[in-house]
Each structure stands twice: as C-alpha cells, then as structure tokens.
C-alpha cells in the first residue's frame, strides 16, 4: 500500500484508542521481558545461568521484580525537593514510552471493514518528534539528580546532561543522510522509499554506524554508561532513588533502547518490510537482532573514560557524521 493511499484511509477514533492502549501495554511487556532476556544473555556470556528460579526458566522474574519494587519503603532524602524528586521519574518514563508512537510496524490492515493503520500516529514530523521527546527526557535526569540533593546525584546528572547533548548533535546529523535519500521526515514514507530503492544501511553504512554509536550513548548503555558509572558515582543521577521510582528510571532506559532500536530498523533496515512472513513478525525479528547487539556490547566492552567519551563525540563522531551528510547530499543530486 502506498503512503498516499494509506493517508486517504482514516481509522475510526475508537480503533485509535484501543490500539494506543494495546501498544502501550505491549511496549511495557516488552520492557519487562527485555530485562529478563538481558540478564539471561549476560549470564550465558559470563558462563553462568542467569535468573532461573522464579517460574519456568525464570519467566516470572519481572513480575516478582515489580512486586518487590512496589513493596519497598517510600521515603525522601533529607534535602530533596519533593515535587521535582517525584516528577523526574514520571517525566523520564513518559518521554520514553510516548516516543514509540510514530514507529511503523506494518503496512496497515483492513479488519472487519475498518482500516487499522500500521502505527499509532503518522505525522509529517515523525523523526523530529522522536528527537524532541528524547531531548525532553534529558530534563528528567538533570532534575532528578538535582532535586535529590546529593553529591553523587548532582555529579551524575551533570555528566548525563553533557554526554546526552554532545551525542544528540551527532545523532541528528547521522539521520540526516536518510532524510536526504528519502526526502521525508515521515517514517512511513522512509520505509516506502526503502522498498523502492534498497535498505538504507547499504548506501548509508557510515550514517548507520554513527547512528548506532550515538544511539548507544543516548540511551546510557555500556560502554557509554558514564552517567551511572558505579565505581565512580555509586549510581549517578538515581543514587537517591529506590523502589519503583528507581524502577521507572530503569524502565525509561530500556524503553529508550527499544525505541532507538525500532528507529534504527525503520531508518536503515527497511522497517517492517520483508518476504513471506507477516510485517510485524519481520519488524520484531529485526528489532530483536538490533537489541541483541546492544546487550552484546554491554557484555564485551569496558566503559570509556569521561574525557575519552567527550573527545570521541566531538572530534570523531561529529566530523564523520557531517561529512556523511554532505557526501549524501552531493551524491543524491548527481544520481
């Protein structure tokens, strides 16, 4: 189905509501099981079993974790600014979950005479929306670290802020090549352009590498997990958080990883398109592969030093991403 045709079809409002509810819960369910998958994978990579006590193969582990976190005593550190201290994890989780809204996971279907779109919302600034929401998410880390009134939290939040804004620049430049090739910020049109041409990872290999490195840094994952470097900062910006409030920061990290992987699949690996199997299955397969790389990196690479991190971001990633954007602009115009 072409994007123009898909736009002509409008889904009824109650389908949008049901779909939004289902997708939000699917995202949360995926997050819960990502934690188990990550612990299992890391366990296997360290030659041990990982969680295998709660339920068959440890499959009920996330439920047990949730119960434990909810039962933790809730208290405030002495000097905390209560309102902001509470709001920060809400903001982190909110931006993480809502960024997933524009990711297309299928071509759109007709079910019982009603049109069901393959994404929650298809807007012309989809890519900018994801960038904007991830930028707003930085406030959560800064405010949370500042409001808890502790040395480690404050240092961690300043580090997080500097790291995230540095890599956001490279991130924006890395996706610019894809935008030039597709001529649109609409993710559905970027997927359609890849069906006509080729997966953008082939002509945009440099862009993809920049995107991936910047994405790992943006989601605070190892080897760029400086914001929560245990050995130096205890836990960074969430040192003073406990229970489910800490859990919400973790949730935002995992859902950000999910969204960035989904964005990578959409921009560089043809989104949901693939032969034989249904579109959402292809989407999940590609998504799983990319998330596996995220977890693999954590098991393999040691953490960077902070000056190395900043030097890499500004002196390597930014020039390379800029050159990639310029080269794409010139080559697209020639051919």
């Amino acid at each position, binding site marked *: 189905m072409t994007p123009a045709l898909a736009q002509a079809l409008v889904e009824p409002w109650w389908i949008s509501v049901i779909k939004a509810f289902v997708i939000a819960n699917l995202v949360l369910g995926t997050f819960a099981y990502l934690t188990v998958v990550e612990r299992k994978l890391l366990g296997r990579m360290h030659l041990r079993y990982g969680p295998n006590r709660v339920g068959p193969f440890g499959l009920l582990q996330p439920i047990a974790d949730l119960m434990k976190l909810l039962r933790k005593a809730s208290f405030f550190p002495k000097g905390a600014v209560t309102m902001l201290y509470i709001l920060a994890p809400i903001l982190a989780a909110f931006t993480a*979950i809502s960024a997933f809204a524009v990711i297309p996971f299928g071509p759109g279907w007709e079910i019982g005479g009603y049109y069901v779109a393959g994404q929650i919302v298809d807007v012309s600034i989809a890519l900018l929306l994801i960038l904007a929401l991830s930028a707003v998410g930085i406030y959560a880390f800064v405010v949370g670290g500042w409001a808890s009134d502790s*040395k480690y939290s404050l240092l961690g939040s300043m580090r997080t802020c500097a790291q995230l*804004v540095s890599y956001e620049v490279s991130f924006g430049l890395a996706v*610019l090549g894809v935008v030039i090739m597709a001529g649109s910020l609409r993710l559905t049109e970027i997927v359609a352009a890849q069906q006509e041409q080729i997966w953008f990872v082939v002509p945009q290999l440099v862009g993809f590498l920049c995107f991936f490195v910047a994405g790992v840094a943006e989601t605070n994952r190892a080897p760029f997990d400086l914001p929560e470097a245990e050995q130096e900062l205890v836990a960074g910006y969430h040192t003073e958080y406990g229970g489910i409030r800490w859990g919400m920061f973790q949730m935002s990290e995992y859902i950000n990883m999910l969204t960035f992987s989904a964005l990578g699949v959409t921009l560089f690996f043809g989104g949901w398109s693939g032969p034989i199997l249904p579109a959402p299955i292809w989407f999940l397969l590609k998504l799983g592969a990319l998330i596996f790389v995220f977890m693999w990196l954590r098991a393999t690479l040691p953490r960077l030093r902070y000056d190395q991190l*900043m030097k890499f971001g500004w002196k390597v990633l930014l020039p390379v991403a800029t050159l990639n954007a310029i080269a794409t*602009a010139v080559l697209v115009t020639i051919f």
Partner: protein
Amino acid sequence: MRAVAVPLAALSDWFPFLVYALIAFAIPASMIVMSFVFAARARRSRARAMPFESGVSQGPPPEQRFTVSFYLTAMLFIVFDIEIVFLFPLAVVLGDVGWLAVGAFGFFIAMLVIPFVYDWKKGALEWR
C-alpha cells in the same frame, strides 16, 4: 466554517498521539501512586534520610561548583543543535531543488566548520 475545518483536520492527525501520550503519562503516574499505597511502612531513622556518601556525610555543599567544560559543552551544543534544526527542512526538499539546495547546504555547513576548527585549535573541545 472553512477556516475552522483546517486546524481541526490537523488536530485529528494528532488525536491518536494525544490518546497514547495520555496513557504514557498515566502509567508512570499510577506507578508513583502505587509506590505510596503498597509500600512497606518505613521505620523512622535519621540514617535513612541521609544522602548517600562514603564516610561522614555533611550533605552537599550549598554551592557546588563545576568544571568550566560543562558550560563550554552546553554552548557548543546550542550552536550545533540549531545548525541541525535548520538542516532538516533543507534535507527534506534537497532532492527536489537540486544543486541550489546542495550549495546552500554546503555554505551553511562551511559557516559552522570555520568556528568548529577555531574551537578545536583553541582547545575548547578538550575535556579538562
């Protein structure tokens, strides 16, 4: 009536996002509420509310000072992020406009490469 129809159409584009954003807000908000409802009763103790620190805790100093590098990074970020904001619309129409757009693209980036090289030479990109 026609003047009203256009913004409403734009709004209906965003309607699913509004619903989804509401749900995305309701989930963490309800978790915070649950953290008060289901939480085990905290024993009152002075040590529990102390900010974490190894050794004797004095709390954070009233005025914490930071490396100047943080401020430099913030300024660099503003410059380059605005650059990207301007580049996105240009990138969308680049295929249709052709060489003129590429020229504008190159000129705009060149304007930023000059201060970038200056920053590099001055050592503003070093972390101290």
